C-alpha cells in the first residue's frame, strides 16, 4: 500500500514539475524580488525611525528628514572620494571611516536644523513647525543642487559578488552588499532599541514622549532630550544613506523627497511612535513595492506606495503596532 502511494506521489510530482516548469522560474523571480524588497525595506525602516521618533516626541512631521538622508548619500560619496585620494583603499577601513564620518556630520545636521528651525517654534501655532520643515527641506535640496550640481552622482563599486541559489541558468542571488545592508540595518536598529529600552537616556526619551510637561517637572532637560532624539534619528538616516549609496551606486539631490514620503508611509504603516513598527512597516512596504514592480508594473510602483499611504491613513491610522491616539483636552 505504502509503496503504491509512494509511486503515485512520485508520478504526481513529476507531472507537477512538468506543468509548472515556468512557475519555478517565476518563483525565482519572486525570490529575487523578495530579497531586493528586504534590502529596500531595511532602508525605509532606518529612515522611518527618524520620522517615528520625532513624531512621537514633539508631534511633528519632520519633512526635512528625507533630505537629511539625501545629504548623507552625498557625504558618503565625498568621503569615499577623499579617502581614495589619500590612498586608503582597504574596503573594511573605508567603510568604517565613511560610516563614522557620515554619522557624525549628519547628526550635526539634525542637531543644527532642530536648533535653528524648530526649537524657536516650540510654542507656536500648530502649522508653523510643519511649514518651517518644508522650508528646511527646500533649503537642503537647493543647497546641495547649487553646490554639487544637478547631475546624478555615482560611487565606485566596492564590494562585488553574491550568494547564488538555484541552477546555472535559473537562479536568484543575494549580493554581498545586500547582506551587509540588511545586517548593518538590523544591527543599528538593535543598538537603538537597546539605548531606548535599557539606558537612562532612553528612559528619559520615553518619559518625554509620554508627557513632556511632567518629565520636565521631574527634572529632565526636555530640550536636550529633543535634541538627542533628532541626533538619533539623523544617525539612522546617515546609516541608510551610506548603505543605499553602496548598494545602488548612484544618487541625485532629489532622492530624499520620494524616499522620505515612502519612509513616512512605513512609519505610519507600522504605527507612528513605535520603533519596531517603523522597521516592520519599512520591510512590509519594501517587499510589497518590490513585488509590485516585479510582477505588476514598474512605472506605477511609486503610485502603489503612495496609495498604500492614503489607504493606511484612512482605514488604520494607528498602524500595525501603534496605539490609537487619545485626544487629551
Amino acid at each position, binding site marked *: 500500500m505504502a509503496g503504491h502511494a509512494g509511486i503515485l506521489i512520485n508520478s504526481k510530482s513529476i507531472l507537477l514539475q512538468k506543468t509548472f516548469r515556468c512557475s519555478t522560474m517565476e518563483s525565482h523571480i519572486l525570490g529575487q524580488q523578495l530579497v531586493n524588497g528586504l534590502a529596500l525595506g531595511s532602508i525605509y525602516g532606518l529612515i522611518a525611525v527618524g520620522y517615528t521618533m520625532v513624531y512621537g516626541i514633539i508631534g511633528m512631521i519632520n519633512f526635512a528628514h528625507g533630505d537629511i538622508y539625501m545629504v548623507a548619500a552625498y557625504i558618503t560619496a565625498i568621503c569615499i572620494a577623499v579617502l581614495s585620494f589619500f590612498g586608503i583603499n582597504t574596503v573594511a577601513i573605508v567603510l568604517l571611516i565613511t560610516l563614522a564620518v557620515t554619522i557624525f556630520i549628519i547628526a550635526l545636521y539634525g542637531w543644527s536644523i532642530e536648533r535653528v528651525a524648530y526649537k524657536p517654534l516650540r510654542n507656536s501655532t500648530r502649522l508653523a513647525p510643519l511649514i518651517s520643515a518644508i522650508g528646511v527641506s527646500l533649503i537642503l535640496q537647493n543647497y546641495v543642487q547649487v553646490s554639487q550640481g544637478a547631475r546624478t552622482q555615482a560611487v565606485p563599486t566596492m564590494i562585488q559578488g553574491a550568494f547564488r541559489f538555484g541552477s546555472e541558468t535559473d537562479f536568484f542571488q543575494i549580493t554581498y552588499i545586500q547582506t551587509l545592508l540588511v545586517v548593518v540595518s538590523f544591527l543599528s536598529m538593535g543598538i537603538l532599541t537597546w539605548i531606548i529600552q535599557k539606558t537612562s537616556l532612553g528612559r528619559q526619551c520615553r518619559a518625554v514622549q509620554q508627557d513632556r510637561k511632567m518629565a520636565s517637572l521631574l527634572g529632565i532637560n526636555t530640550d536636550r532630550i529633543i535634541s538627542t532624539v533628532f541626533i538619533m534619528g539623523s544617525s539612522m538616516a546617515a546609516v541608510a544613506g551610506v548603505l543605499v549609496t553602496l548598494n545602488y551606486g548612484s544618487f541625485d539631490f532629489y532622492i530624499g523627497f520620494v524616499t522620505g514620503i515612502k519612509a513616512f508611509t512605513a512609519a505610519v504603516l507600522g504605527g507612528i511612535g513605535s520603533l519596531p513598527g517603523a522597521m516592520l512597516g519599512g520591510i512590509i512596504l519594501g517587499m510589497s513595492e518590490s513585488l509590485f514592480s516585479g510582477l505588476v508594473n514598474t*512605472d506605477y510602483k511609486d*503610485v502603489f506606495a503612495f496609495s498604500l499611504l492614503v489607504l493606511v491613513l484612512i482605514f488604520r491610522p494607528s498602524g500595525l503596532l501603534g496605539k490609537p491616539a487619545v485626544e487629551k483636552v
Partner: protein
Amino acid sequence: MLGTAHDNPKVAALKEALLSAAITFLVMAPISGIVLKGYAFEADFTVPVYAALIVFVLRLAILLLEQNETGRKILVRLSPSKGGGVTVAKPGGVPWLRFILPLLFIAGLVLPFFLGKYWLTVVILAMIYVLLGLGLNIVVGLAGLLDLGFVAFYAVGAYMFALGSQYWGLGFWTALPLAAATAALFGGMLGFPVLRMHGDYLAIVTLGFGEIIRLVLNNWTSFTGGPNGVSAPNPTLFNLEFSRSAKIEGNIPFHEFFGIPYDSSLKYLFIYMVLFLVVCAMIYFVNRLRLMPMGRAWEALREDEIACRSMGINHVTVKLSAFMMGAMTGGIGGVFFAAYQGFVNPSSFTFFESALILAIVVLGGMGSVVGVIIAALVLTILPEALRDFADYRVLIFGILMVVMMIWKPRGLIRIHRPYFRVKGGKA
C-alpha cells in the same frame, strides 16, 4: 552655555560663538567645499569659511548685546512677535477703500493694453498664482489645514480642459465649470476620510495624492499623452476664435469679426480679462464668506478645534467645505493655465509648484487676501526680473519660509477679522 559659572561672561560668549562657527563650518564644508567630479573631487573651502565667519560675528554680537541693558532693548524690538490672536477690524471699515477699490479695478482692466506680449504673459501667470494663492489661502490661511498637494487640483483642472477638448470636444467655457466641479469632487473624495483624523496627516496624504496624480498623468501614456503632454485649444468668445483663421467650421476669428488687424497677443489679452474678472469675483467671494457663518467657523476651527467642537460645530463638514472650495479654485486656475500655455504636461505639476503656492500664502500672511495678492505678484514677477538668481530661487523660498515662521508666523500683514453686527442686535 559652555562656560562654567566662574567664567567671565564675555569669554563664555566668545566660546559659544566659536562653537557655532565651528559647527557651521563642519556642516557646510563637505557639501560646499568638496565638489564631486566623477569619482574624484575638487576642494575649495571659501564658502564654508565665509559662512562660519558670518555666523561667528552674528552670534557674538547677539550674545554681547544680551549682556547689557540697551542691547536687550534692541533685541526685544527685533525679536519675534509673540503677540497673539486675531483682532477684530474697526466698525465701518476703512473709509478711503471705497474710492481706491474702483480705481484699482479700472487700473487692472486697462493695464494689459500698455504691456508688450512678453510682460502680458508674465502678468497672466502672476494672476494665475494670485488665484491659486487665494484658493490655498482658504484651506491653509482661513481653515488652518495644511494642503501640500494643491497642485493636484490645479493639474485636474488643466487636464480636464486639455483632455476634455481632445476627447469630447469641450470648449473653454464648458470646461471652466466642469473643471471646477471635478476638482472639488476630487477634493471631497480625498478630504472626507482624511479630515476626520488628526490634522497633520492631511499634509502627508495630500502630498501623496499630489504625487499620485502627477505619476498617473506621466505614465498613462495612452490617455494623457504621458510626458509629451496634450495640447489645449484656444479660448473662444461667443464662438469667435483668437487665431489667425478659424479652426472649427463656421466660426469666425475675432479680428475679422471686429475688422481689426490680427495680433497674436489678442488671445492673451482675452485670457487676462477673463482671469482678472474671475480673480476679482474670487476676492469678493472670499470676503463675503468670511462674514458668513461658514467662514467664521473656518477661522474659529483654525484657532481652537476642541472649543469649536464643544460648541457644536461639525468640524468635518466645515473643514471639508474649505478643502473643496480650495480645490475648486485650483481647478479653475488649471483651466486658465492650460488655455494660456496652449499645452499641458506633467512637469508643470511637481511638488515644487505646491511649495511655491504655499510660500505665497505663508509670506502673504495666512488668511490675508491683500497679503496673498502682493506675495503672488512679487514671487512670480521678481524671478522674471532677476533671472541671474534663478538657481537660488528655491533656496530663497526655503529661507523665507523658515524665517517667516520664526519671526512672524502670522504673516507680514496683520489680519483683522471682519467686524460683524447682527441686524437690529446690540453686539
